[in-house]
């Protein structure tokens, strides 16, 4: 414990007197339910998102059951009356249920799980603290943003229990399938497909409100001395993410409104002429273009990928310097790379659409930009990797997850390169290869970073550490089984397995029965032993479904230590002995624990850059932003910033 930081430790005791007035007089529902405090809203986002992540995981397990055991009744669901319409007489999952759960798994994981957790929860909690702001610029807009998200989530969830079931046209909801699905129901408003669109409008509104709030806060509410290039990378990433959400979501809103019109008002935005459904010409004027939907959808869809990944980079970039006790390598480069990444992400969207039959010019353009965008991505990941070099690394749980993020995202990113070329996409489109690729980016990538973030910032709010032992029990099985789920997908995908086969591809014998490895190999023997098969039996491509599904169920079990850890540590965790238990440098660690309403006791000032670890000549191996010092790098902050610093916006 350094002498300098101990002054901040002392602040905790006297901390709460100051804001007694603001905070403690509020009734419970105003303090915790309809709160305007960014930290409470962040926690609300976090817990809601974790619940949705669990729900999305459950949907995936039902799907994986159907893939691994297409001929067996699905446990649990088979006895529920409400789902009988979509199960067949033997209690097996039907294609319709698979489609329903598949569509909702994607929707829930992305729009209700990862983005709210990464941007809504971490962004909300950490950003104002790191720039030294008392709260978000528009606290009530912030509250509206959460409740809009909550309503959207409730609508999505309840749509499972409508007579039509939930949306079932894939998470992308391509028209005209999404336009015509469930059109038979008399009360069109109460069909899952329509509810999906309504829920999306709420979720989009939530994101837009959030984005406006974040950007305004970062631009206008930075503390004294917090110049642009002293902002932690986390804040930069949130700024770029905010712009992505702000500008990419409206076209999806347009697409949702148009599809809503197609469903409810009978328009033909996405209905081509002469569309034939079940032998009948579809009763609409025609003349629309399904391609238009895909353009509008993917104009959001691709920036959305970076909305998923940038906060993950942001979290990892905070944790790695803190635990290597070295500055972040190439901070400025990373900032510029994130900006270039944000910009390019708007002009790569059509690489999702190579097989739509759109023109060759557009394919060529988008292949070029797609290859280009790998440059800033590689800069980011390389900087993080080099940051590890020569550090005396503390391998605590957040650091384990953060380090694992690098190779996991690396696999996800590198397997994406072949998908940039349309000739390869001819073979790989909609196969498990694609599924493996983007799940590596999002599941062991972003989700690991989010776990790291939870372990890292948990002591800030609770004043207690999470258990290291349970953390290790969470991390190692998760790492193994994540790879167990997703690694075989590359093999299956290249063998030609289609992502939407609810029986796992067993019906396509020429694809399913390709040899993976012979039964005499080490893996073959191991496989036959684990799954109780006759010795010497060859492992076919279709058999990999067993590996993946078993891994998925074991992955679910590996999350149990985390859940126990999360709730137990709130009351039983080891108490922190200072406000800055990790000896980190950024401003959030200068606040009392937990930060009161209004965050800072004294006006926060930033004296230096965000990652000043192991500064030569400094008394300690870290020089926090909030401490005035004589280590040469610190300069007295100007009253306000000079005009020129704006140019980085």
């Amino acid at each position, binding site marked *: 414990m350094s002498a300098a930081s101990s002054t901040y430790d002392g602040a905790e005791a006297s901390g709460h007197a100051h804001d007694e007035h603001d905070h403690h007089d509020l009734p419970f529902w105003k303090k915790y339910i309809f709160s305007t405090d960014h930290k409470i809203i962040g926690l609300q986002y976090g817990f809601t998102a974790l619940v949705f992540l669990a729900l999305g995981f459950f949907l995936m397990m039902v799907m994986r059951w159907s893939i691994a055991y297409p001929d067996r009744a699905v446990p649990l669901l088979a006895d529920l009356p409400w789902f009988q319409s979509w199960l067949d007489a033997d209690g097996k999952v039907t294609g319709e249920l698979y489609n329903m759960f598949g569509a909702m798994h994607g929707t829930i994981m992305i729009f209700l799980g990862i983005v709210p957790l990464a941007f809504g929860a971490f962004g909300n909690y950490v950003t104002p603290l790191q720039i030294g702001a008392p709260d978000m610029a528009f606290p009530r807009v912030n509250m509206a943003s959460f409740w809009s998200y909550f309503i959207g989530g409730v609508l999505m969830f309840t749509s499972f229990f409508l007579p039509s079931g939930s949306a079932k046209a894939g998470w992308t909801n391509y028209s005209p399938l999404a336009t015509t699905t469930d059109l038979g129901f008399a009360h069109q408003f109460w069909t899952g497909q329509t509810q999906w669109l309504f829920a999306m409008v709420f979720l989009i509104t939530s994101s837009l409100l959030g984005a406006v709030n974040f950007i305004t806060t970062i*631009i206008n509410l930075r503390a004294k001395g917090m110049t642009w290039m002293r902002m932690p990378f986390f804040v930069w990433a949130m700024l770029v993410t905010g*712009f992505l959400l702000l*500008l*990419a979501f409206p*076209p999806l809103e347009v697409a949702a409104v148009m599809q809503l019109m197609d469903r409810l008002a009978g328009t033909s935005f996405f209905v081509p002429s002469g569309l034939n459904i079940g032998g009948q010409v579809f009763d609409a004027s025609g003349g629309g273009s399904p*391609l*238009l939907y895909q*353009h509008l959808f993917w*104009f959001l869809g691709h920036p959305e990928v970076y909305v998923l990944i940038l906060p993950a980079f942001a979290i990892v970039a905070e944790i790695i310097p803190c635990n290597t006790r070295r500055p972040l390598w190439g901070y400025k480069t990373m900032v510029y790379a994130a900006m270039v990444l944000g*910009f390019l992400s*708007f*002009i790569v969207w*059509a690489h999702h659409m190579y097989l739509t039959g*759109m*023109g*060759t*010019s*557009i394919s060529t*353009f988008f292949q070029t930009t797609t290859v280009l965008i790998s440059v800033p991505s590689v800069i980011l990941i390389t900087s993080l990797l080099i940051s590890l070099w020569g550090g005396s690394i503390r391998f605590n749980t957040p650091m384990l997850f953060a380090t694992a993020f690098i190779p996991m995202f690396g696999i996800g990113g590198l397997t994406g390169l072949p998908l940039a070329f349309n000739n390869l996409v001819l073979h790989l489109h909609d196969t498990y290869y694609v599924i493996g690729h983007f799940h590596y980016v999002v599941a062991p990538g972003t989700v690991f970073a989010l776990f790291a973030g939870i372990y890292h910032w948990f002591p800030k709010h609770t004043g207690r550490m999470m258990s290291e032992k349970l953390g290790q029990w969470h991390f190692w099985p998760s790492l193994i089984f994540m790879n167990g789920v997703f690694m075989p997908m590359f093999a299956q995908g290249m063998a030609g397995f289609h992502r939407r086969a609810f029986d796992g591809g067993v019906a396509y014998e020429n694809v399913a029965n390709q040899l993976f490895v012979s039964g005499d190999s080490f893996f073959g023997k191991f496989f036959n032993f684990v799954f109780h098969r006759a010795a010497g039996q060859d492992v076919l491509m279709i058999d990999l479904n067993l590996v993946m599904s078993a891994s998925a169920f074991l992955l679910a079990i590996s999350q149990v230590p985390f859940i126990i850890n999360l709730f137990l540590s709130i009351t039983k965790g080891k108490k922190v002995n200072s406000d800055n238990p990790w000896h980190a440098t950024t401003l959030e660690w200068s606040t009392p624990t937990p930060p009161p309403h209004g965050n800072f006791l004294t006006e926060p000032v930033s004296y230096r850059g965000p990652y000043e670890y192991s500064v030569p000549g400094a008394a300690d191996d870290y020089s926090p932003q909030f401490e005035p010092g004589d280590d040469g790098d610190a300069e007295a902050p100007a009253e306000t910033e000079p005009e020129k610093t*704006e140019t980085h*916006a």
Partner: protein
Amino acid sequence: MATLTPEELAHHKKAYTAVGIALGVLTIVTVLLGYFHPFDFGVPGLDWVDITIGLVIACIKSSMVALIFMHLNHERGLIYKILLFTFCFFLGLMVLILFAWSNPIHEAFEAVRSSLS
């Protein structure tokens, strides 16, 4: 725009009135253009001349609204940067999706095929 002197405000008012009148006049011009198609000289297929002129007028009108009414003419650089990015992506969305109708390789292929048959 924080503090404005009375003279500045009076100046503003004059500018606002002038812009309002100009907008009205340009609207009338647009309607006449759309109704009588003067610049296609009665030739079918030359409508694009009128369309272009109509859109140019719309652009002039909208920039007047943005610059004068929305005070962009003396706004800070930050706003311009935000709008510049937005405009880039807006153009990208507009123009790039139209590329979908351009297919030179296919057209060349078709040309060769039709010349063979």
